[in-house]
C-alpha cells in the first residue's frame, strides 16, 4: 500500500511541476492547430460534410479522431483538464506559502554583505541610532523593514519589497481558473436561437427557430427561453459605390413578456438589443421575393420566401417556393429560382448579380408540377426536391412581369422585401467572466512589472575609544526577480542613503584620523 502511495505521490508531484505544465501548454497549443486548419462542425457543418465527401477514408479517419470538433473533443478536454489540475496543485501550496511570506519577517542580514550581487558601504558621523532611523526613513513605506540588534552595538536593517509580484501572479492564475469554471458554467446554462425574419414579421424567443445551439440545461428543459417577442418593422442596408456595405439597420418593436407593451429599438451590427439576460443580434440579411401563383385549379396564392445569398459580395441569392395543391393529385407547384439584386447578362442568357444593391432586380425561376416532398423526409425551405416533379416552365422576370407555364400555371413577380437573420443569445456567466478577465490582466501587470527586492543594512559603530572613528553603513542587495535594472536601482538607493544618513567628513580629515 505504501508503495502505491509513493508512486501516486510521485506522479502527483510530477503533474504539478513546472516542466509538466510547460509540456501541457505546448500540447494545448499544438492541439488547437487542427481546429483552425480543418473545417469545424460547430462553425461550419456543410464544409465538414464537403471535406468528408472529398477525402474518403482519410476524412473518416480524421473524423474518428475528432478532428472536426477539436474544441469539444475528449483529447482537447483531457489536456486542459490536466493543465487545470496541475495548476490547482501548484497554486494551493503557493498560496499557503505566500500567505506565510506576507506575514513573515524579513530575513536576518547575511554575515558578509559584500558577497551579495550588489553591495556598497559608506561612513558617517551619525550615531548608529541616527543612521538606522534615517535609513528607515529613506527606504520609506514601500519597503518592509525589520531592525535587529546583532550585539556589540551593531544594528542591522532587513528590508524587503515587491510582495505584490507574487500576489499578482497568484491573482492571475486564480482568475484564469475562475474563467475556465465560468466558461463551463456558461456553456451549461446557455442557449442560442436563430431566426430568419422577413420585414413585417417577427418571432418569439425559442418558438420555431431556424436553428439552435443549446446548452445542456436548455436541452433538457431545465431552463426555458425568456418569453419576449421581436417584430422586424424595417430593415435597411446601405452600400458604398464600390458595393461595400456601409450600414445595416434593423428597426424593431419588442415586448419583454407577452402582455408587456411594445417598445421600439434599433439593432445594428455592433449594437445588439439587450433584454435583461438575453441579447438579440442582427447576424445577416437577404432578399425575400414576393410572387403570385395561379394554381392548376384556378385559385391564386401569394407567397413570400427568404432566399439565401450564394455570393456574399453581390448577394446573388437562391431559394424556392412550395405551393401545395390537392393531395395525391400531382397538383403541387414547386418553383426554384435565383434573385439577382442588380442583374447583368453575362451572355447566353446567363444572369448574375453585380452589386448587393437592388436595382431592377430579376427573379429567375424554374416551375415544376408534381408532388413536393414525396418521400416525406424533411427538406430545406431554401431548395426544392424536384425528383417527383416535371418542369413546366422557366423565365427571368422583372418586377410586375409574369410567365405562363405549359400547364396553365402563371407566376407573377410582385416585388421583394428584405429579411434579416436574428440571433438570440443567452449566457449567464459572461459578466462574471469579464471580471475574471480584468483580474487576469491586473494580476499579470503586477506579476510582470513589480520588482521583488531584498536589502540589508549593517550599521557598525566606530571604535568607542577613538572619537574620529566613524559609523560604517554597509549595504547589500539581492534582486529576487528578473525585471528592471537592479544594479542601477541599487546604486541610486545607495546614493540616497549616503546623502541622507550623513555627510561624511572631508576626505583629508578621514585620512588624517586614520593615520
Amino acid at each position, binding site marked *: 500500500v505504501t508503495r502505491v502511495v509513493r508512486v501516486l505521490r510521485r506522479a502527483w508531484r510530477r503533474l504539478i511541476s513546472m516542466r509538466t505544465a510547460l509540456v501541457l501548454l505546448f500540447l494545448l497549443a499544438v492541439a488547437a*492547430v487542427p481546429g483552425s486548419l480543418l473545417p469545424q462542425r460547430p462553425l461550419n457543418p456543410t464544409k465538414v460534410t464537403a471535406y468528408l465527401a472529398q477525402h474518403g477514408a482519410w476524412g473518416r479517419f480524421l473524423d474518428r479522431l475528432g478532428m472536426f470538433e477539436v474544441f469539444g473533443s475528449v483529447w482537447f478536454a483531457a489536456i486542459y483538464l490536466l493543465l487545470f489540475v496541475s495548476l490547482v496543485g501548484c497554486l494551493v501550496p503557493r498560496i499557503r506559502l505566500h500567505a506565510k511570506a506576507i506575514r513573515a519577517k524579513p530575513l536576518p542580514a547575511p554575515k558578509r554583505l559584500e558577497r551579495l550581487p550588489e553591495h556598497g558601504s559608506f561612513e558617517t558621523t551619525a550615531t548608529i541610532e541616527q543612521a538606522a532611523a534615517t535609513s528607515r526613513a529613506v527606504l520609506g513605506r514601500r519597503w518592509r523593514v525589520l531592525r535587529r540588534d546583532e550585539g556589540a552595538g551593531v544594528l542591522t536593517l532587513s528590508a524587503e519589497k515587491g510582495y505584490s509580484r507574487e500576489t499578482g501572479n497568484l491573482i492571475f492564475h486564480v482568475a484564469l481558473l475562475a474563467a475556465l469554471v465560468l466558461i463551463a458554467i456558461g456553456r451549461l446554462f446557455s442557449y442560442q436561437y436563430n431566426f430568419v425574419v422577413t420585414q413585417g414579421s417577427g418571432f418569439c424567443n425559442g418558438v420555431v427557430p431556424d436553428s439552435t445551439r443549446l446548452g445542456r440545461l436548455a436541452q433538457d428543459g431545465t431552463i426555458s427561453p425568456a418569453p419576449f417577442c421581436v417584430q422586424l418593422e424595417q430593415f435597411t442596408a446601405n452600400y458604398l459605390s464600390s458595393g461595400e456595405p456601409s450600414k445595416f439597420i434593423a428597426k424593431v418593436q419588442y415586448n419583454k413578456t407577452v402582455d408587456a407593451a411594445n417598445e421600439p429599438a434599433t439593432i445594428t451590427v455592433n449594437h445588439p438589443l439587450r433584454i435583461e439576460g438575453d441579447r438579440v443580434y442582427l447576424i445577416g440579411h437577404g432578399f425575400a421575393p414576393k410572387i403570385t401563383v395561379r394554381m392548376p385549379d384556378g385559385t391564386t396564392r401569394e407567397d413570400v420566401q427568404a432566399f439565401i445569398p450564394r455570393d456574399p459580395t453581390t448577394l446573388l441569392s437562391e431559394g424556392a417556393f412550395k405551393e401545395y395543391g390537392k393531395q395525391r393529385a400531382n397538383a403541387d407547384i414547386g418553383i426554384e429560382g435565383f434573385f439577382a439584386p442588380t442583374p447583368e447578362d453575362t451572355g447566353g442568357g446567363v444572369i448574375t448579380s453585380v452589386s448587393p444593391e437592388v436595382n431592377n432586380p430579376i427573379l429567375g425561376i424554374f416551375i415544376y408540377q408534381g408532388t413536393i416532398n414525396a418521400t416525406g423526409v424533411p427538406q430545406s425551405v431554401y431548395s426544392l426536391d424536384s425528383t417527383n416533379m416535371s418542369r413546366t416552365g422557366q423565365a427571368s422576370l422583372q418586377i410586375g412581369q409574369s410567365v405562363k407555364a405549359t400547364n396553365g400555371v402563371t407566376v407573377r413577380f410582385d416585388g421583394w422585401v428584405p429579411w434579416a437573420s436574428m440571433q438570440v443569445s443567452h449566457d449567464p456567466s459572461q459578466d462574471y467572466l469579464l471580471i475574471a478577465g480584468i483580474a487576469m490582466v491586473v494580476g499579470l501587470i503586477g506579476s510582470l512589472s513589480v520588482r521583488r527586492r531584498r536589502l540589508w543594512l549593517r550599521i557598525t559603530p566606530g571604535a568607542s575609544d577613538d572619537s574620529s572613528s566613524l559609523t560604517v553603513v554597509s549595504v547589500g542587495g539581492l534582486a529576487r526577480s528578473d525585471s528592471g535594472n537592479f544594479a542601477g536601482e541599487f546604486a541610486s538607493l545607495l546614493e540616497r542613503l549616503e546623502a541622507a544618513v550623513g555627510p561624511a567628513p572631508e576626505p583629508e580629515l578621514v585620512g588624517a584620523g586614520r593615520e
Partner: protein
Amino acid sequence: VTVAVNSGMAHLSDALFTTAIAVYTLAMIGYAAEYAFGRRGRVATTARAAAPAKVLVGAAGTSDSRDSSSTPAEIVAQSTDAGRPARRSVVGERFGRIAVGLTIVGAVIHASSIAIRGAAVDRVPWGNMYEFASVVGLIAVVAFLVSLAKAPQIRYLGLFVMLPVILTMFLAGTVLYAKASPLVPALQSYWLAIHVSAAASAEGILMTSAVITVLFLIRQRYDKRIAAELPVRFPTSLGSRLPEPATLDKVAYRTVAFAFPIYTFGVIAGAIWAEAAWGRYWGWDPKETWAFIAWVIYAAYLHARATAGWKGRSAAWINLLGFGAMTFNFFVVNIVISGLHSYAGLN
C-alpha cells in the same frame, strides 16, 4: 453611397508611406555603416587576444542578478585596447548619428502617413492588413527610438530593427495594399480603436523581442564556436559585435514581459467586441484560435524562463515560435484561411 473618401489625402498618405520606407532604408544603410565601421569592438577577438576563451564563456554564463550590469558599455571597454584606428570609430559614430536622425524623420513621415490615412477615411487608420502592418512597423520603430533614448549604446543595433520593419512595410505596400475606404459595418465600433491598437502594440513590441532573440542565438552560437576555436561564418560572424548573450536574453524577456499583458488585454478586448458583434465572446474562429495558440506559447516562454533546463536557448526558441504563431495569424490566417476576421481588404 454614404461616406466619402478624401482621395487627395489618401494619395498624400500613400506618397508619405513610400517616402517613409525610403527614409528608413537610408537609415538602415547608416546603421549598417556604423555596424561595419563602428567602435563597437569585436568582442571575441579582443577577448581572445587578452585572455583565454574561457573568460568569454564565463562572461556569457554570469548569474542572473549580476548580468544586469554587463551592458554593451562593457564590450566597449573590452574593445578599447583592440588597437582599432580612431578615425574609423569617428566615421562609424557619424553614420550612427545620421541614421538616428533619419529614423526620426522617417517615423514622423510614417506617422503622418497613418494620421492622414485616418483623416482621409474619417476613422481609425487600422481597418485592414495594410494599415495594420503600417501601424505595427511604426510601433516597432518608436519602441526602438524610446529604448535608444534610455540606452544610447544600442544604437548600432538599429540595423536589426530596421530590417524587419522595412520588410513588413514593403509587404504592406505591395502584397497587402488596400485602397483607402470606409469600414464595413462589422468594424464600425470603438472597439476597433481599443482591440486593434492593443494587438498592434503587442505585435510591434513582440517583433522587437523576436529580433533581439535572434541576435541572442547568433551571439550564443558565436561564443560557442569561438570557445571551441571553430571557424565562424556569416551570419554567426555578426555575433562579434553584439552585446553579451545574458544581456540580450534579459532584454528579450523584458520586452515580452511588457507586451504580454498588452496582448492579453487585446485578446480580452477582442472577446468583448466579439460579444457585441457576433453574439458570443469566443467562438474558435481561426483568428481567435491562433491568437490563443500564440498566447499559450508566450505563456510557455514566460514559464520556461523560470524553469531549470529551459532557460537560455530553449526559451529563446519558444519566443521565436510564439512570434511565428503570431506572424502566421497575421499573414496566413488573414489571407488564406477564411473566417470572421477576414478584413484584409484583399480580393
